[in-house]
C-alpha cells in the first residue's frame, strides 16, 4: 500500500512544491521482497531514503543456537534462498575448521560445482530482474527459462530445486548421480549463446542505458567504507575476490578472471554479473574436467553417517554411532571461527563460538545483502530521482530473506 504524508508546504516560488513522505513497500514488486523504503521526497527529487527491514525476521541465529550442527544446514538454506549451496558451503567450512578436518577432494569439487551453478542461478535472476524493475519485462522471462535449467540440475543432484541442503560436515550427502555431468556440460554449451542474447536485448538499449548509466554511483572509497562486497564492490573498481585472494576448497586449482569494472553505477553492477556468469561457466567446466574419483564424505563415524548403508545391518558399532549422531549430534571442540567465502552477493561468513557441546553458543550470520543495503542510506551519488532509487535497489541485488535473517 502506498501512503503519502505531506510534511510541509514549500514556499510559493515553485509550482505545487511540497515535501512528502512516501512509503515504498513493504509489499511492492520492485522491492524484491518485503522491504520498506521510507522516502522523503521533494516532488520527484529524493532527499532521504531510510530502509526499514525486519518484516521477514525469523530469528535464524536464535534458532541455530538451539539446534545441532547438522540441523543448522536447512536453516542456512533459507538465508539466501536463491543460491543455497553457497550458504551450505560456508557453514560446512566453518564447522570443519572448528573440527580440524577437511572434506575429501571429490566432495570439495562437488561443492564448488554446486556453488558455481547456484551463483549462475542467482546472477541470472538479477540480470533479468533489474531490467524488469525498469520496465523491460522480456529479459526476466528469458533468464527464468535458463534459471529453470539450473534448478532442474539441482533437483537431479540433490533432490530439491531450491533448498538443497546438499552439504554435510565432512563432505556432501551423495555422489553425483549418473548423467548429471552430461546435463551440466550441455547447459554450459547452451548458456553462453543465451547470455549474448540478453546483452543484445538489453545492454545497448537506449532506455536501459539512460536509466542505469551514471545513476547511483558508488565511489571505491565509499564502497569499502559502507562495507559493500562481491560484484557490487568490484563494479566500483575494487579488485578483491575471496575466491582468488584467499582461496578456499579447490579454487586455487581453477583458472578464472575476476571481473572488475570502473564506474560503480547501476549499469556496471549489472554488467559485472553478466560477465561473472561467463566465468562461472568456465569454472564449472574445469571442475568437471579435474574432478577425481574417490570418497565424497569423510570416513569418520562420529561425525558423518556411514557411506556404505549395508554396514548398518552388520556392524553394531556403526549402528551405535548412527543412533548417537541422529539423536544428539556430534560434539565440536571449544573455540571460535569465522570463515568467509565469496557468496553470489558478497562476503558470506558464519561466526561461530563453540563451548564444546553439540550446539553453537553463538551463531552469527555475516549476510552480504544486509550490509550492501546500507548503500541506499548513504554513500551513493547521483541517486536523485525516485526512479533512480528503484534502479539502485535492483542493481544491489538484495535477497530480503538474507537481509532479515
Amino acid at each position, binding site marked *: 500500500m502506498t501512503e503519502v504524508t505531506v510534511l510541509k508546504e514549500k514556499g510559493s516560488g515553485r509550482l505545487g512544491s511540497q515535501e512528502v513522505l512516501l512509503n515504498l513497500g513493504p509489499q511492492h514488486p520492485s522491492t524484491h521482497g518485503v522491504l520498506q523504503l521510507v522516502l522523503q521526497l521533494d516532488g520527484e527529487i529524493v532527499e532521504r531514503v531510510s530502509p526499514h527491514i525486519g518484516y521477514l525476521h525469523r530469528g535464524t541465529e536464535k534458532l541455530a543456537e538451539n539446534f545441532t550442527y547438522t540441523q543448522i544446514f536447512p536453516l542456512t538454506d533459507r538465508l539466501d534462498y536463491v543460491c543455497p549451496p553457497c550458504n551450505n558451503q560456508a557453514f560446512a567450512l566453518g564447522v570443519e575448521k572448528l573440527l580440524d578436518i577437511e572434506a575429501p577432494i571429490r566432495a570439495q569439487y562437488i561443492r564448488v560445482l554446486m556453488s558455481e551453478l547456484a551463483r549462475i542461478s542467482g546472477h541470472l535472476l538479477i540480470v533479468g530482474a533489474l531490467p524488469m524493475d525498469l520496465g523491460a519485462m522480456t529479459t526476466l522471462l528469458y533468464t527464468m527459462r535458463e534459471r529453470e535449467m539450473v534448478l532442474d540440475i539441482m533437483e537431479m543432484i540433490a533432490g530439491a530445486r531450491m533448498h538443497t541442503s546438499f552439504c554435510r560436515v565432512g563432505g556432501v550427502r551423495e555422489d553425483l548421480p549418473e548423467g548429471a555431468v552430461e546435463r551440466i556440460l550441455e547447459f554450459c554449451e547452451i548458456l553462453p549463446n543465451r547470455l549474448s542474447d540478453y546483452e543484445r536485448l538489453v545492454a545497448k538499449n537506449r532506455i536501459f542505458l539512460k536509466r542505469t548509466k551514471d545513476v547511483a554511483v558508488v565511489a571505491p572509497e565509499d564502497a569499502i567504507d559502507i562495507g559493500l562486497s562481491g560484484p557490487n564492490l568490484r563494479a566500483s573498481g575494487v579488485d578483491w575476490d575471496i575466491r582468488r585472494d584467499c582461496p578456499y576448497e579447490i579454487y586455487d586449482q581453477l583458472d578464472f578472471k575476476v571481473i572488475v569494472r570502473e564506474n560503480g553505477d547501476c549499469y556496471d553492477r549489472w554488467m559485472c554479473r553478466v560477465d561473472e556468469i561467463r566465468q562461472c561457466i568456465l569454472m564449472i567446466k574445469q571442475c568437471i574436467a579435474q574432478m577425481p574419483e574417490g570418497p565424497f564424505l569423510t570416513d569418520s563415524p562420529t561425525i558423518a553417517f556411514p557411506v556404505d548403508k549395508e554396514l548398518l545391518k552388520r556392524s553394531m558399532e556403526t549402528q551405535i554411532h548412527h543412533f548417537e549422531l541422529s539423536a544428539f549430534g556430534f560434539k565440536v571442540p571449544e573455540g571460535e571461527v569465522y570463515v568467509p567465502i565469496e557468496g553470489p552477493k558478497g562476503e558470506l*561468513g558464519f561466526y561461530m563460538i563453540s563451548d564444546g557441546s553439540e550446539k553453537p553458543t553463538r551463531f552469527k550470520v555475516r549476510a552480504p545483502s544486509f550490509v550492501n543495503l*546500507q548503500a541506499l542510506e548513504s554513500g551513493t551519488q547521483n541517486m536523485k530521482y525516485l526512479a533512480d532509487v528503484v534502479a539502485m535497489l535492483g542493481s544491489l541485488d538484495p535477497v530480503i530473506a538474507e537481509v532479515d535473517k
Partner: protein
Amino acid sequence: MIALPDFVQHILDHFGSRVMYGGAGIDMHCIQVTPEHVVDLCRYLKKQTGQQFNFLSDMCGVDYFPAVNRYEVVYHLFSIPQQHRLRVKCRLVDPADGDLPTLPTVTGVWRTANWHEREAFDMYGIVFEGHPNLQRIYMWDEFEGYPMRKDFPVRGYKDDYNPFGDEKEGQT
C-alpha cells in the same frame, strides 16, 4: 613462543598495556581491548600504514550468560590492501540492575558499523554511545526485551499473539 606477525606485534607495541593479545585462534589473531580504548584502537587500525584495516567485515554482540561481565562485542576486520584479518574483542562490564551495557560507537571509523550496531542493540541491548540513529532494526519499536540474550526464551513470552510462549516472571 612463535613469533607474531608484524602487524599484530606493532599493535601490541603501540598500545602497550591498553590492549591484550587474545591468542592466535584457528582462523585469525585476536586483540582484546577495553571499551575506553576501542575507538582509539579502531582508528589506529584503519589509518596506520602496515595495518590498513579499511573493511569492517562483521561485528556482533555475544552473550556469555551466566558468566560475570556477560556481554562482549566482537569486530572482524579485514584489510583489502594487505589481505590480513584480525579479530578485536571488547568485553563489557556488567551494568547496574536495569541499565544497559554501553560502549562508544565506531560509526565514525567505518560507516558500515551503523547497521551492525543497531542490530547488536536490537538483539542484545548493547548501547553504542554517539550512534547517529540507535533504533531497533529487526524487531518493531514497541518490542520489549532483547531476543538474542540467553535468558530470553526461544519461543518468546506469552501474549495475545503468541499463546505458546513462556510465562513472564511476575505474571499470573
